[in-house]
C-alpha cells in the first residue's frame, strides 16, 4: 500500500513541477477564468435586485467553464510522447495515476476558483446573509465532484476523435445533480432563507458514489485497447 501512495505522490509532484516550469498553460487558464467572469458581469447586471438570487448559479457556471478548460489539459502532456504506454507497462497501479491526476486537477481548479470568487464578490458586492462558513464544504465537495468525473471522462475521451468536444458532452449530463446541489446550496446560503444541509449531504453522497465508481472502472478505461 505504501508504494501506491508514493507513486501517486511522485506523479503529483512531477505534474506540479512541470506545471510550474512552463506556467503558460496556467496563465492561459487564469486569463480564461477572468474573461468568463467579465462576460457574466456584462450580461447579468450586478445592480439589479434579482441578480442576488441568480449569482449562486452564475458563480458555479463560471467555475464549470474554467474546470472544463483545465480538465481538457489533464492528459495533454502524457499524450505528446505516448508516455501513458510507459506507465501501463510498469507494475504501477492505474488508480495511483488517476488519484494523482484528480488531485492535481483539484488544486488547479481551486486556484482558478480562488481568482474568480473575489471578483464575483467585488462586481456583485455580495454580502452573505446565511451561514458563510458552509460555503467552504459546498465549494470543496462541488469542485471534487466536477474534477473526479472530469479526470475520468478526460481519460475516456482520449480514445475518441474530437477530444476537447467529447469531455463536456460526457461530463455535463452526469454532473447535473451535483450542479443542482451546488447552485441551490450556494444560493440558499447567500440569500440565507433556507438551510443548505440537504444539498451538502447530497453532494457528499455524489462524491462518494462517483469516486468509488471512478476508482473501480479507471483500470478498464486506461487499459482499453
Amino acid at each position: 500500500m505504501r508504494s501506491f501512495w508514493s507513486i501517486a505522490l511522485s506523479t503529483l509532484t512531477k505534474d506540479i513541477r512541470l506545471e510550474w516550469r512552463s506556467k503558460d498553460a496556467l496563465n492561459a487558464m487564469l486569463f480564461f477564468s477572468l474573461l468568463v467572469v467579465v462576460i457574466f458581469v456584462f450580461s447579468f447586471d450586478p445592480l439589479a435586485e434579482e441578480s442576488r438570487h441568480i449569482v449562486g448559479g452564475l458563480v458555479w457556471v463560471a467555475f464549470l467553464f474554467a474546470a472544463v478548460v483545465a480538465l481538457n489539459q489533464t492528459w495533454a502532456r502524457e499524450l505528446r510522447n505516448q508516455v501513458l504506454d510507459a506507465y501501463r507497462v510498469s507494475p504501477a497501479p492505474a488508480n495511483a495515476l488517476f488519484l494523482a491526476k484528480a488531485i492535481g486537477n483539484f488544486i488547479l481548479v481551486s486556484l482558478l476558483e480562488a481568482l474568480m470568487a473575489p471578483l464575483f464578490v467585488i462586481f456583485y458586492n455580495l454580502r452573505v446573509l446565511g451561514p458563510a462558513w458552509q460555503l467552504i464544504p459546498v465549494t470543496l465537495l462541488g469542485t471534487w465532484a466536477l474534477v473526479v468525473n472530469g479526470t475520468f471522462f478526460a481519460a475516456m475521451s482520449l480514445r475518441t476523435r474530437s477530444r476537447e468536444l467529447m469531455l463536456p458532452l460526457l461530463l455535463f449530463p452526469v454532473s447535473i445533480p451535483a450542479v443542482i446541489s451546488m447552485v441551490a446550496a450556494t444560493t440558499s446560503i447567500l440569500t440565507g432563507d433556507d438551510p443548505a444541509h440537504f444539498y451538502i449531504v447530497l453532494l457528499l453522497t455524489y462524491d462518494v458514489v462517483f469516486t468509488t465508481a471512478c476508482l473501480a472502472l479507471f483500470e478498464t478505461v486506461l487499459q482499453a485497447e
Partner: protein
Amino acid sequence: MKRAFPILAVLTALLLVYAFYQALWVAPTDALQGDVYRIIYYHVPSAWTAFLLFFINFIASVQYLANARPSTARAARWIVIAIGIIGFVAPFIPQVKQQLPTGMYPSSVATTFLIITGLYFVIGKYFVDQDLDVLAVTTAEVGVVFCSIVLVTGPIWARPVWGIWWAPGDIRLTSTLVLWLIYVSYLVLRRFSDSAQTQKLAAVLAVFGALDVPLVYFSIWFFRTQHPQPVIGGGGSMDPRMLHVLLISWMAFLCFAFLVCWSRYRLEKLRREVEEAEALESLLEPAGLAGPSSAVKTPLSRGSK
C-alpha cells in the same frame, strides 16, 4: 423464425389500434382537464417503456464489463442475487413498509425486484459478449426515441392545462430530461469513438449514467419541496378504468418497442458483419499478396455473395 416478424407486426398493429380506440373513446373524460388529459395514454407508457429499455441497457453493460474476467462475472452474479433477496424481503418489514409511497404495495415492490433479478439472468443466458454490446446499443437508441416522445408530449400536455410549457419542479419530467441527456451523450460517445474499445467505454458510461439517476431524482425532489409547483398529470390514485386503459396502451407500446428493437438488433449485427467483411477485403487487396505462401484464405462470410 423469419415468418414470426410479420405475424407479430400485424398483431402489434391491431393492439395499437385497439389501444388508440380505448384511449380516445372508451376511457372516461377527466373531471378537471376534460379530454386533453388523454395525452397521458401516450405520455406515461412511453416513459415506462423508455425506463425499461434504459434498464436493460444498464444490465447488458454491467454484464459486458463483468464478463471481462470470470472472477468479476461470478461476483456480479452474487451481487445481483443478494439485491434480489434483499429487495424481495425488505418491503414486508414494518419500518420499511410505511416508508413506501401511498400507491405502492409491498408485494408489487417485491415482485419488481424478482423480475429485475430474473431479467439479469435471462439476458446473461441469451446474450453473450458481442451480443450484449449489440443489445446495449439497440436498447439505448430505441430508449432515446421513446424518451424524446415523453419530452415532446409532456409540454404539449402542460400548456393547455397549466398554462406553462415547462415545469422545472415536476420531478418526473425533469428526471426524464436528464436521463435523455445521459443516453444521448452515450450515443454520441459511440459515434465519436470508432475504435475497438468503444464498447468498453460505452459500457462504463452506461454504468455512470445509471448511478446518476437516483441522485437526479433526489436533487429535484428536494428542489420541489422547497418551491412547490404543479406536477404534470397530478399525483394520487387514478380511476380504475383509466388505469386499465393505461396498461393496455403500455402493452401495445411494449410490443411495438420489442419489434423496433428486434429489427435494430438485426440491423446492427448485419452492419458489423458487413464492415468486417469489407475490412478483410481491403486488407487482402494490395499487391503484397505475392508472398511465398499466401496461406491466408479469404474467409468472407456467407453474406457477401
